[in-house]
């Protein structure tokens, strides 16, 4: 069970999860040519002034990509940065287009799963809404 209160990251647990889908995820990460053609398929990218932080590939490379690059050795601060990318910047509507065929939503969903294992999830968005923030 994820322990929400604890500050430390269970690296072994993260590593074990990363290992689970290592081959297919790394293959996808490797295939990404960084062409950014996926950007326009994300409606959030389009309505947030084409901010690169909303690009599907950006979200994936800086969450799941980073987790693999660092082989799970990440700090809570790292994960919290990813949290914004994975929950605030993505509705997981699964409509992103990749010219090469990388299925980005699956990768985002997998990254979310890893974060959840460390007690980090999208529930913070509700408190943002309750405070009157528009999630900007």
């Amino acid at each position, binding site marked *: 069970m994820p322990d929400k209160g604890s500050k430390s990251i269970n690296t072994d647990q993260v590593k074990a999860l990363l290992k689970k889908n290592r081959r297919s995820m790394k293959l996808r990460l490797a295939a990404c040519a960084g062409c950014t053609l996926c950007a326009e*398929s994300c*409606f959030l990218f*389009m*309505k947030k002034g084409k901010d690169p932080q909303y690009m599907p590939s950006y979200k994936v490379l800086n969450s799941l990509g980073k987790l693999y690059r660092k082989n799970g050795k990440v700090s809570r601060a790292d994960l919290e940065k990813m949290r914004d990318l994975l929950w605030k910047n993505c*509705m997981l*509507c*699964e*409509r992103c287009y990749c010219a090469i065929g990388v299925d980005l939503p699956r990768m985002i969903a997998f990254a979310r799963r890893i974060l959840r294992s460390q007690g980090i999830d999208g529930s913070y968005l509700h408190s943002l809404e309750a405070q009157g923030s*528009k*999630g900007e």
Partner: protein
Amino acid sequence: MIIATKKQLEDIKEMIKGYKKVLNVGCGGCTSVCLAGGQKEIEDLCTQLTICLKGDQVVFEINGFTVERQCEPHFLEELDEIVKPYDALLSMGCGAGVQFLAERYPEKPVFPALNTLFLGVNKDIGWYEERCKSCGDCVLGMTGGICPNAMCAKGLLNGPCGGPQDDHCEVDNEVPCAWVKIYERLKAQGRLDNIMKVCPAREWQDQVQGTLVLEAYRDRYAKKDK
């Protein structure tokens, strides 16, 4: 997820005929996921309508804008400024989204571009199936996780009618009989007792508009009334 599908283009044209400037509002929620009302479909419909309605003599402008979800007020706030110059709105959200838009902009005619079909699952890409009637009184625990209300053509609660043919529904031989499935699943789980007793008439919960205020929030809204 709510499953919807686009109305026939002719019907949409008929609805918005005569309006010069139309805003086509997409939804990033369910209708995006079921490939009916996301950004891509918004673009498609704008293109189709522009080709069909715009003529040499006819002024017609349509623009698209996709919000996160049409069923939440704070996602619609963004539209308040945007909608101002438009004569009419077209919504590619589900029925709830259309109504919430119309409620927020009562002076603007709002038209549905989709038909909302059901609460269902994504069987495969582009293939959806109904699973839930949102009856408000779930019996899935008794029926082995198969809804007799949604999956049985007659919504029977006490076992199959006389008609299953080769384990399929008498109404449509492509549809498996819900009660045959319920029986088989409960049998496999050793829980057939569930359906051996007479299930009494249901107290339907869906005759009036559904409203839900959570216990924890009750005081909040009670105060507002005073």
